[in-house]
C-alpha cells in the first residue's frame, strides 16, 4: 500500500471522528476541521518529528506544532489520538464536563500533544515564533509548525507576527494557512476580503508556497519544498487551498457548518459518505 493510501485511510477515519465528536457533543466546529484534515494528517503521519512516548510540552528534541485556530480541535484531537498521544476512546469525551478534550485546546487538563492553549484567534503564530526563537537559542535543529485560518488572518496580530518573524529571521518556522475562503458570517470575500494572500505573505518577506490541501501529492510536495528552504533566513508559509466541510456533500463549500453540529440523521448521512478505516471510537 502506498504512503498516500495510508494517509487517505487515516484522514477518512479522522473525518468520521470529527462528525461523530461534534454530533456527540452537540457542538463544535466541523467545517474547518474537515478542510484541514488532509494536510494535518500528512503533517502528523509523514512530516513531523514527534514521538508521543517522548513528547514534552517544552518541545525538547522534537518538532512542535501550534494550532492557532483552536476551533479546529476535532481534527487535531482525532489526529493526536490516532498518533498515540492518548486513547482513541477519549474522543467520546470531547467538550463534555471534566474532559481533557476542551472545546478549544487547553493545557490546563494536561492533554498530551498540546503545547499551548488556543482559541482566541490571532495569537498562535506569535507563540510559535517564540518557540522557534527558543529552538535557535538552544541550537535545537527541529522545526516549529503552526496552523492559522484564513479568516483568522483578519486579526492584526497575524501581521505583527508576520513582520516580526522576518525581522528575527525565524527560518525554522513552517506556518500553514487553511485557505478555505469561509468564516462564520460568510465567505472571506463577503466578511473582510483578504486579497491575494500569496502576494501578502511574499510582500512581508516570507517564502510562500501554495498547495492543494486535499491532494496528498501536492501536500507532500509543499512540505518537501518547505523543508528544503528551511534555514535560509526566511520564515515559510504554506497556503493550503482547501474546501470548507470537505468530504461531506452537504457541508462542503459553505460557511453554514463552521460551528454547527449535525443532527443524528445528518450525522448518519455524513458518515455514509466517509469510509470507516481504522475503527470508530466507542
Amino acid at each position: 500500500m502506498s504512503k498516500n493510501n495510508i494517509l487517505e485511510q487515516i484522514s477518512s477515519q479522522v473525518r468520521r471522528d470529527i462528525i461523530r465528536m461534534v454530533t456527540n457533543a452537540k457542538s463544535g466546529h466541523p467545517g474547518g476541521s474537515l478542510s484541514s484534515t488532509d494536510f494535518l494528517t500528512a503533517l502528523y503521519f509523514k512530516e513531523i518529528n514527534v514521538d508521543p512516548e517522548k513528547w514534552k510540552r517544552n518541545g525538547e528534541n522534537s518538532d512542535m506544532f501550534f494550532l492557532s485556530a483552536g476551533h479546529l480541535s476535532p481534527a487535531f484531537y482525532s489526529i493526536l489520538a490516532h498518533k498515540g498521544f492518548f486513547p482513541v476512546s477519549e474522543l467520546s469525551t470531547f467538550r463534555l464536563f471534566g474532559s481533557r478534550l476542551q472545546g478549544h485546546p487547553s493545557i490546563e487538563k494536561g492533554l498530551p500533544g498540546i503545547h499551548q492553549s488556543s482559541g482566541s484567534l490571532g495569537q498562535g503564530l506569535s507563540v510559535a515564533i517564540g518557540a522557534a526563537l527558543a529552538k535557535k537559542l538552544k541550537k535545537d535543529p527541529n522545526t516549529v509548525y503552526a496552523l492559522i485560518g484564513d479568516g483568522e488572518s483578519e486579526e492584526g496580530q497575524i501581521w505583527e507576527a508576520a513582520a516580526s518573524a522576518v525581522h528575527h529571521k525565524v527560518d525554522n518556522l513552517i506556518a500553514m494557512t487553511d485557505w478555505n475562503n469561509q468564516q462564520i458570517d460568510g465567505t472571506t470575500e463577503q466578511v473582510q476580503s483578504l486579497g491575494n494572500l500569496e502576494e501578502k505573505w511574499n510582500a512581508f518577506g516570507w517564502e510562500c508556497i501554495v498547495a492543494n490541501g486535499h491532494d496528498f501529492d501536492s501536500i507532500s510536495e509543499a512540505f518537501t519544498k518547505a523543508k528544503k528552504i528551511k534555514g535560509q533566513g526566511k520564515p515559510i508559509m504554506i497556503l493550503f487551498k482547501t474546501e470548507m466541510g470537505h468530504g461531506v456533500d452537504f457541508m462542503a463549500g459553505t460557511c453554514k457548518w463552521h460551528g454547527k453540529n449535525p443532527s443524528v440523521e445528518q450525522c448518519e448521512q455524513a458518515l455514509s459518505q466517509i469510509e470507516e478505516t481504522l475503527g470508530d471510537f466507542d
Partner: protein
Amino acid sequence: MKKYINTGNKDTRSGFGAALTELGRTNPKVVALCADLTGSLKMDEFAKENPERFFQCGIAEANMIGAAAGLALSGYIPFAGSFANFLTSRVYDQVRQSICYSNNNVKLAASHAGITLGEDGATHQTMEDIGLMRMLPEMVVINPCDYNQTKAATIAAANYFGPVYLRFGRPSVPNFTPENQKLEIGKAIKLSEGLDVTIIATGHLVWEAIQAALVLEAEGFSVELLNIHTIKPLDEKAILKSVSKTGALVCAEEHLIAGGMGEAVSGFLARVKPTPMEFIAVNDKFGQSGKPAELMEAYGLDRVHIISAVKKVCSRKCK
C-alpha cells in the same frame, strides 16, 4: 516610629533594569523582549550584554506577548517590557490566553504605571492595570515601592514559576528600603507598629504613608504601617492581624479605587472582619498632563490626603 532614610531619589524602573542586568549575568534562562522602549525600561544594558537573548519586538505588543509565551513554554524566563498601559489593557486577551490560561512563566515588566508618568497625560497613564491583572487566574501582581525593592522584586519574580505582573514607575522617588533585600512574594512588610489605625500602602504611596505616619504620631496617633508590595496573592494573615488590633484602616495606592489594592483588601475584610476603611486612590476618572508631584496632590494621592483619611477613619471607629 522606626526611621526610614532616603538614601537618594531613584526611579523604580532603574531598579528593574539593574536586576535584569544581574539576571542576565547569573541566569542563562532569562531572556528579554521589549516593544520599542528599551531605554525607558532600562533594558539596554541587558540587551547590550546579551544580544542573542534580547528580542526587540517593535511597536507590536500583542505579538511580543505571544512570542514571550512561546519562549516561556520552551523553558526560558522571558521579561516582556513596555509601559504598564500597553502591557495590560492593550493586550489583555493575549495576556489572558497566551500567558495565564496557558500558565506560561512570563514576567510582564510594566513601567510608567500610574499617574506619575506625568506630562504625557492620560493616554499613557494607567490606573486600571492592577485591577485588570489581579482578575486573571494564575497572575501574581507585585508593585514595589522604591529602587531597592523593585530590584529585589525582579529577582524574586525570576525565581518564581508562573506569570507575574511587575509594576513600577517613571519618576525618581525616595529610595529607603534596604539594599540587597530579599523580597518574599505575598509577604507584607511591617514598617511600623501601632494601635490606633492601620495604613496599608503600595508602590509610590509607601513613602507618602511613612511621611504621613510621622506627622500623625507627632499628633498622638499610634499608626501601624504595612507595605504591601504583593497585591496578589494578598497577605491576608498580616492584614487581619493588624486590623484586629487597630480596628481602622486606610489603603493607599496610585490606582483607581475600582479594582485596586484597597478593593482587594476590603473584599477580604468584608468576609472575615468588616472594618471602617478609607481609600487613598482615584475615584473613576482619567489622569491628565502635569508634573508627578502636582498630579499626586491634585488627585488626592499624597501624605496630606493620607493624614485626613486617617483622622476620618479614626473618628468613624469612635462612633
